[in-house]
């Protein structure tokens, strides 16, 4: 029944990430769910293979639980439930979508560096100037998820 366990682990990772501003370690997840460390570690690995989370290379540390990033990025989303880094513009807005549909994404034009703020109210994006460039075709996103 690894599917059920994996979903419990997934939910725990997201719940703690939102509550604490950082993802839980394998040991913290194991303790919270009353499972063994190795059982939790295997769940983390399966979730990564299923492309639900991304682990920092060579570790069991959660790097991305999309749309959330555990490391600072140029995409800072402020919501009613706190401020978080997204992995890209899509994910930065995704943080707001995931956490109530109200907030603001602070980023900058990748060309000139001018600050850009994208505000969302009642799940509606406020009018703003700008575009988003996707560099990599959809089927290749997971070849290097840090560069899309």
């Amino acid at each position, binding site marked *: 029944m690894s599917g059920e366990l994996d979903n419990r682990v997934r939910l725990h990772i997201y719940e703690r990430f939102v509550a604490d501003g950082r993802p839980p370690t394998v040991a913290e997840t194991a303790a919270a769910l009353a499972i063994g460390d190795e059982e939790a570690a295997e769940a983390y690995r399966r979730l990564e293979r299923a492309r639900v989370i991304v682990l920092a290379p060579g570790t069991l540390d959660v790097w991305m639980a999309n749309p959330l990033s555990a490391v600072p990025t140029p995409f800072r989303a402020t919501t009613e439930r706190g401020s978080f880094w997204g992995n890209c*513009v899509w*994910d*930065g807005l995704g*943080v707001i979508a995931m956490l109530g549909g109200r907030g603001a994404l602070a980023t900058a*034009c990748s*060309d000139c560096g001018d600050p850009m703020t994208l505000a969302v109210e009642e799940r509606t994006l406020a009018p703003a100037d700008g575009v*988003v460039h*996707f560099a990599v075709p959809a089927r290749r996103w997971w070849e290097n998820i840090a560069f899309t």
Partner: protein
Amino acid sequence: MLAFRSEAHVDRWRAQRCVPRGAILSLGQTWGLAEAWYANRLAPEWRRRTPDEAEAVFAGLGLTGEFWRLQ
């Protein structure tokens, strides 16, 4: 996926880095993707979309063609 002031800024950035043109989305389309992809991510019943389902989300936002194909 990066934000730019305008398409002219995308072109200047690409030229400086020899990055081929990918896809350019409006901010509204990007918010649509964010909503479709992540609004229910904390739900217990959430699961990853199949490629067909993901392509349907793209198409619903006007994102069609080879760039948006997953299979």
